[in-house]
C-alpha cells in the first residue's frame, strides 16, 4: 500500500505547472490528494510525474461573479462550505458539500478537484451539471471554458486534457423565487451516496440531477409531472446501475423515494424565499 515512484514538481506559477505537464504525457496534477493519493497507494494509478499545484498563489479564491460563484482550484471544500457569499448566491452548493466526505477530508480536498475527478458517486459534478455551470482550464493552447454538459464523459473521466490545469469552476446563482434542495442516502454519514438527488425548481420548470445512478451525472426534466408520479417519471428517463454497493432494483427504489422528497423540499425552499 505504498505509491510507486514518481517524479515530483511543485511549481510556483500556473505557467510553470502547464509547462511541466506538457513535458510528460504520463503526468498528473496533485491538488488536495484526497482522491489521487488513495489511488496511488493502492497502485490503481502510477503516473511518472506529479505536479503539485498547492503552492501556486491566487488559486484559493471564492468570488461572486455575474450573479454566480467562481471557485478557484485551491479552494478547499471546507472553505466553500463555510462561505456566506456562496450560501447566499447559490445555496445548493453548501447543501451538497455538507454531504461530501467528513470535515477532515474537506479541509484538504478541493471542489474543483472533485469536478475533474468526475466520480459518478460525487456530489459536486451533479450540482455543476444541474445548474449549467462550467470549468475553466488552462493548457498549452491557452484558456478554455468547458460547459458542465461536456465535462463528464464517463466513470472517473472528464474532458480536461492531460496537459491542462483546471483553474476554477463557475456555479450560476439562484434566480429570485427559485428553489433548490439536496437529498442523499448513504450507508453511513459521510460515505459516498448509494443514490443522491439535487433539485432545481424555477417557476413551472422542475429538474432533478442524480448521483450514483449511472456512470455520469444524470439530469431529468420533470416539468408538469404530477407529484404522485415524480419517481416513476424520473425512472423512465434513468437506467440505475448494479454494483457491489447496491442492486439496480434498490437504486430504483431510492430514486422513487428521493425524487418526491427532493422536489418537495425545493418547492418549500422557493415558497420560503418568496
Amino acid at each position: 500500500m505504498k505509491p510507486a515512484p514518481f517524479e515530483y514538481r511543485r511549481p510556483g506559477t500556473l505557467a510553470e505547472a502547464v509547462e511541466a505537464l506538457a513535458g510528460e504525457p504520463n503526468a498528473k496534477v496533485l491538488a488536495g490528494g484526497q482522491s489521487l493519493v488513495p489511488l496511488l497507494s493502492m497502485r490503481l494509478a502510477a503516473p511518472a510525474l506529479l505536479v503539485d499545484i498547492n503552492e501556486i498563489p491566487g488559486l484559493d479564491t471564492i468570488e461572486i461573479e455575474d450573479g454566480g460563484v467562481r471557485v478557484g482550484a485551491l479552494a478547499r471544500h471546507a472553505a466553500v462550505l463555510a462561505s456566506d457569499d456562496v450560501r447566499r448566491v447559490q445555496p445548493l452548493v453548501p447543501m451538497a458539500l455538507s454531504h461530501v466526505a467528513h470535515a477532515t477530508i474537506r479541509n484538504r480536498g478541493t471542489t474543483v478537484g472533485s469536478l475533474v475527478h468526475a466520480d459518478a458517486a460525487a456530489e459536486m459534478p451533479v450540482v455543476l451539471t444541474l445548474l449549467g455551470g462550467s470549468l475553466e482550464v488552462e493548457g498549452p493552447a491557452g484558456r478554455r471554458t468547458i460547459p458542465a454538459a461536456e465535462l463528464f464523459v464517463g466513470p472517473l473521466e472528464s474532458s480536461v486534457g492531460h496537459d491542462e490545469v483546471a483553474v476554477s469552476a463557475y456555479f450560476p446563482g439562484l434566480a429570485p423565487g427559485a428553489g433548490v434542495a439536496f437529498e442523499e442516502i448513504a450507508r453511513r454519514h459521510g460515505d459516498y451516496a448509494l443514490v443522491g438527488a439535487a433539485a432545481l425548481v424555477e417557476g413551472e420548470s422542475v429538474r432533478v440531477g442524480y448521483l450514483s445512478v449511472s456512470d455520469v451525472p444524470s439530469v431529468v426534466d420533470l416539468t408538469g409531472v404530477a407529484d404522485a408520479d415524480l419517481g416513476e417519471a424520473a425512472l423512465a428517463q434513468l437506467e440505475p446501475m448494479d454494483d457491489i454497493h447496491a442492486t439496480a432494483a434498490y437504486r430504483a427504489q431510492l430514486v422513487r423515494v428521493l425524487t418526491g422528497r427532493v422536489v418537495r423540499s425545493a418547492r418549500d425552499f422557493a415558497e420560503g424565499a418568496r
Partner: protein
Amino acid sequence: MSEELHDVRLTVNGTTHDVRVPARRLLSDALRHDLGLTGTHVGCEHGVCGACTILVDGAPMRSCLMFAVSAAGHEITTVEGLTNPDGSLGPVQQAFAECHGLQCGFCTPGFLTTITAGLRDNPCPTHEEARDMIAGNLCRCTGYQNIVKAVERAAEIAASGEETAS
C-alpha cells in the same frame, strides 16, 4: 534506476527537522519512520479510519493522504504536541483518561488531534456537535459513547483552565 530524493524541512510540534525522502514518502511514514514520532497511527492508509489525523497549520488532515514533500513550509502538530508545556496531559488527553475514552488506543491519536482543533473552533459544542466532531474517525473497540463524553468533558476542562489562567 535510483529514486530521486528530496531535502525537506518539516516543522513538527514547533521543532524543525531536515529529512531526505523520495517524493512518494507519505507524510504519515515520514513522521513515524524518519522522525520516530510513532504517536501518529496508520490504519487504513486511504483516508477512511482517521487514525493518522494530524493538524496542518491548525486544521485536521489525514497524514496518509499527504506526501512529506508537500508538507514543507507548513506547521504540523501531532499527538506528541498536544501535551501542556510542562509535559502534563492536555485537556483532551486528560478527558480521554477520565472518561475511559480509549481501550486499545489505536484510534486515539486521530481523535485527540481532531477534537483539539474542533474545540478550538467551537469551545462549547452541543451533544450533536460533539458527535459530529468525531464523525470522521473510526474506533473499533471503545465505542463512541465514552468518546463523545470525553469531547464534552474536554470542553469543560479547557473552559475551567482558561478561567484559572486569567
